C-alpha cells in the first residue's frame, strides 16, 4: 500500500472543513468519541449544525476564535492507499502555514466556491502551489448544489482558472465539481451532475499517478551521520547514513564525494530492513564504500558524471516567515541546506512578488512577514544544490535567525536568470 500526502487549502467559508469531514466520515475515519465530542461542543456553543472544523482545530485559541491558526495533520486510509492530510489555513495572513503544509505535499486541493468563482485567494493559493512545486493540483469547485449543479458555472470557472494558470508552472491540474455538504462527487458519484464524466475526489486521490514525481535520474545522497561502531565484531565497519535525495544508488556504482571530489565504489547498502542492493529516493540507508575516505556530515555523494551545482553565490525565491523581524540585507543568518550548515547573507532583493497578480516589484530593500521575493544569497561555503524544480530536497533551504533561533525564511534555489 502506498501513502499520499496532500494539502487542503482554503478558508472555512469555502467548505474546506466540511470536505475533510466528509472524506473522513465517509471513509469511516472519524471515531465515535470524536464525533460525540464535537457534537457536544457545537451544541454548547449554540451552533445549528455540527461544526466539523472542530475535528482539526485542536488548539484552545482556535476554538475560541473559530479560526484555524496552524497546520493540522489528519490521517485516513482506504484499502488502496493511506493518506496524510495537511490542513492549511487559508487566510491571507497565514501564507506561512500554507507553505509549511504544502512543502512536503504530493498533491494540493484548492477549493473554489461555485457562487463566487476564481477569486484573489484562489490565485494566491495556486501560485504558492506552483512555487512550491507540488506535483498535482485539484481544483474542487464546491457548493455546486447552490448553483443548481449547472454545467455552465463549472465550465466558466475552469476556463477562468486556466487562463490565469497558463502563467504558472503547474504540471497536472484536475477540476472537480463537488458539493462537500451534500456529498456529490466526494466519495460517491453525483446523480445530480450526469454531465460530469471524471472521477470522484476520493477515486482521484486513490489513483493519481505519483511514481514519476521523484527525481530518479540525478543521484544525490547528503551524508547525515557516519556510523563507525567501536565493537569487536565489526572492527572495519564505516557507513555513511542518510536519506536518498535523488536518483537510485546501486551496489557496484561509482560515486564521487563532494566537496573533496574523491571517487570510490559502493560495496554495500544497509537499511532498517537489512542489506539491500539498491536505494531509492526517500529511503533512509547506510552506504558502504570500497575506499577509506574522509567523509563527514554535510558532504554529498553523487555520480562522477552527474554532479549538482556548487556555488557560494545563489539565487533563490525566499518566503519570509518571521513575524518578529523582517529580512535585513547583509545581516548574517544560519543557512540549513540538506544536512549542511553554513552562514549566509542576502545581498540583494531582485524583486518582490505580489502573489495576487504575479506583479514583480523592484527597488525593494526588505521582505516582511509572509512576503515572497527573489534574492541573491551569499554563503560562507559552497552549497551543492539543484534547481528546486529538479529536486525539492537539494533545492530547498531555511534561514535561521541567529539571535532568536526562529526559522526566518524558506528558500527555493533557482538557476540564475540568463
Amino acid at each position, binding site marked *: 500500500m*502506498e501513502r499520499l500526502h496532500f494539502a487542503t487549502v482554503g478558508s472555512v467559508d469555502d467548505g474546506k472543513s466540511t470536505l475533510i469531514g466528509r472524506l473522513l466520515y465517509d471513509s469511516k475515519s472519524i471515531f465515535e468519541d470524536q464525533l460525540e465530542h464535537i457534537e457536544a461542543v457545537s451544541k454548547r456553543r449554540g451552533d445549528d449544525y455540527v461544526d466539523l472544523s472542530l475535528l482539526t482545530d485542536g488548539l484552545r485559541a482556535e476554538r475560541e476564535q473559530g479560526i484555524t*491558526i496552524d497546520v493540522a495533520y489528519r490521517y485516513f486510509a482506504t484499502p488502496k492507499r493511506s493518506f496524510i492530510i495537511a490542513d492549511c489555513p487559508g487566510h491571507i495572513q497565514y501564507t506561512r502555514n500554507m507553505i509549511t503544509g504544502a512543502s512536503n505535499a504530493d498533491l494540493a486541493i484548492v477549493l473554489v466556491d461555485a457562487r463566487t468563482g476564481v477569486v484573489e485567494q484562489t490565485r494566491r493559493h495556486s501560485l504558492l502551489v506552483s512555487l512550491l512545486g507540488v506535483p498535482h493540483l485539484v481544483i474542487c469547485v464546491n457548493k455546486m448544489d447552490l448553483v443548481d449543479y449547472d454545467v455552465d458555472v463549472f465550465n466558466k470557472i475552469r476556463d477562468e482558472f486556466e487562463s490565469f494558470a497558463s502563467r504558472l508552472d503547474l504540471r497536472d491540474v484536475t477540476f472537480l465539481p463537488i458539493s462537500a455538504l451534500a456529498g456529490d462527487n466526494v466519495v460517491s458519484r453525483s446523480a445530480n451532475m450526469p454531465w460530469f464524466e471524471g472521477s470522484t475526489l476520493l477515486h482521484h486521490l486513490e489513483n493519481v499517478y505519483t511514481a514519476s514525481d521523484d527525481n530518479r535520474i540525478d543521484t544525490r545522497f547528503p551524508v547525515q*551521520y557516519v556510523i563507525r561502531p567501536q565493537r569487536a565484531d565489526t572492527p572495519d565497519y564505516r557507513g555513511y*547514513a542518510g536519506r536518498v535525495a535523488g536518483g537510485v544508488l546501486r551496489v557496484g556504482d561509482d560515486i564521487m564525494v563532494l566537496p573533496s571530489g574523491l571517487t570510490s565504489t559502493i560495496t554495500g547498502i544497509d537499511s532498517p530492513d537489512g542489506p539491500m542492493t539498491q536505494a531509492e529516493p*526517500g529511503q*533512509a540507508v547506510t552506504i558502504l564504500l570500497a575506499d577509506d575516505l574522509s567523509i563527514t556530515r554535510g558532504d554529498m555523494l553523487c555520480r562522477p558524471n552527474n554532479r549538482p551545482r556548487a556555488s557560494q553565490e545563489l539565487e533563490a525565491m525566499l518566503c519570509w516567515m518571521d513575524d518578529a523581524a523582517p529580512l535585513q540585507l547583509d545581516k548574517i543568518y544560519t543557512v540549513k541546506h540538506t544536512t549542511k550548515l553554513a552562514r549566509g547573507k542576502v545581498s540583494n532583493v531582485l524583486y518582490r512578488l505580489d502573489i495576487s497578480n504575479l506583479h514583480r516589484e523592484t527597488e525593494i530593500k526588505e521582505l516582511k512577514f509572509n512576503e515572497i521575493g527573489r534574492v541573491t544569497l551569499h554563503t560562507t561555503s559552497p552549497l551543492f544544490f539543484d534547481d528546486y524544480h529538479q529536486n525539492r530536497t537539494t533545492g530547498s533551504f*531555511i534561514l535561521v535567525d541567529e539571535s532568536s533561533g526562529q526559522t526566518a525564511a524558506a528558500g527555493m534555489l533557482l538557476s540564475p536568470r540568463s
Partner: protein
Amino acid sequence: MKSALRSLIDESVTIIREVAAEFERPAMLFSGGKDSVVMLHLAVRAFSPSRVPFPVMHIDTGHNFAEVIEFRDRTVRALDVQLIVGSVQASIDAGRMQDATGPRASRNPLQTVTLLDSIKEHKFDAVFGGARRDEERARAKERVYSHRDAFGQWDPKTQRPELWGIYNGRHKPGEHFRIFPISNWTELDIWQFVADYNIDLPSIYYAHRREVFRRDNMWMAVSPFMKPEEGETVSEELVRFRTVGDATCTAAIESSATTIEQVIAETSVARITERGATRADDRISEAGMEDRKKLGYF
C-alpha cells in the same frame, strides 16, 4: 513502489539520526508502552551495527503494572541501551512536590516535575517522545522538533514552521527540544510494525483475565494504587490494554485478542480512539492535553 510503512520508517529513522548528529545530549523517553517500544526499535535500526548513541529514560510514577517494569528491564538489556530512571517517588521525598491524595488520586500530572528535573539534572538538550499526531487534538498541531523554553513550556502560538525535511533545533542554553519521530504514525501503523518486525510487547497488550471494576464507563484494573470505591464492584473480565501508562489513569478494554493478528483485526474496526477509550487523564477538560503540554508534559 513505496510502501506506506516503509516510508514512515524512513522518515522516523532520518529524524532520529538528525537529532543524534545535531544535539549534544539527547535522550529517548521509554515507558514500555507500545509507541516508545517501536520508537526504540527504530533507533536501534537507525544506528546498527553501532549501539544507540544516547540513553533511554523512564519517568516512573511508582504506580506501574508489574508486567511493564519487567518488560522494560528485559528490553533495555536485550537492545543493549543505557536506562535512566526518573522517579516521581524520589521527587516527592525530596519535597519537590506533594503526592496526589484522595480516592481518585493520580500521579500522572506529577510526572512533569520529575521529567523536567531529570532533563535538567542530565543536561539533556533533546528528548525523544513517542507521541503521535493521530492520538489527540493538541498533538495534531505539534511540530516534530518542539521547542521548550527554560521552564519546559510549549507555546503553540510561536511554533517554528517546519518545511520539507529540514528541522531547526537552534536553542539557548537551558532550553531544550522534544522530538517526536513517530508523529505521522497511526495506531494501526504501530501494530503493523509490531507484526512485520516481530516486536515483543508487554503481555498486558494482549487479552488476559484480570480483576477490574467499572468507573466513568471504563474498566479500571484493581491494583495496590487503584481500589474500587463504594458501589463499584470488582469482577474478573477478559481484557487487554490499548495504551499503557500510569496504572491509575489507564483503562482496559474488553477484548479476546490474544495474538498480534487479532489485535490488528480489532484495531482496524475500532470505533473509538485509543485515548478516548482508555485515558482518564484526557477527560479533565476539552483542552486537557494542550494545557498539560504547555506546562511541559510529554
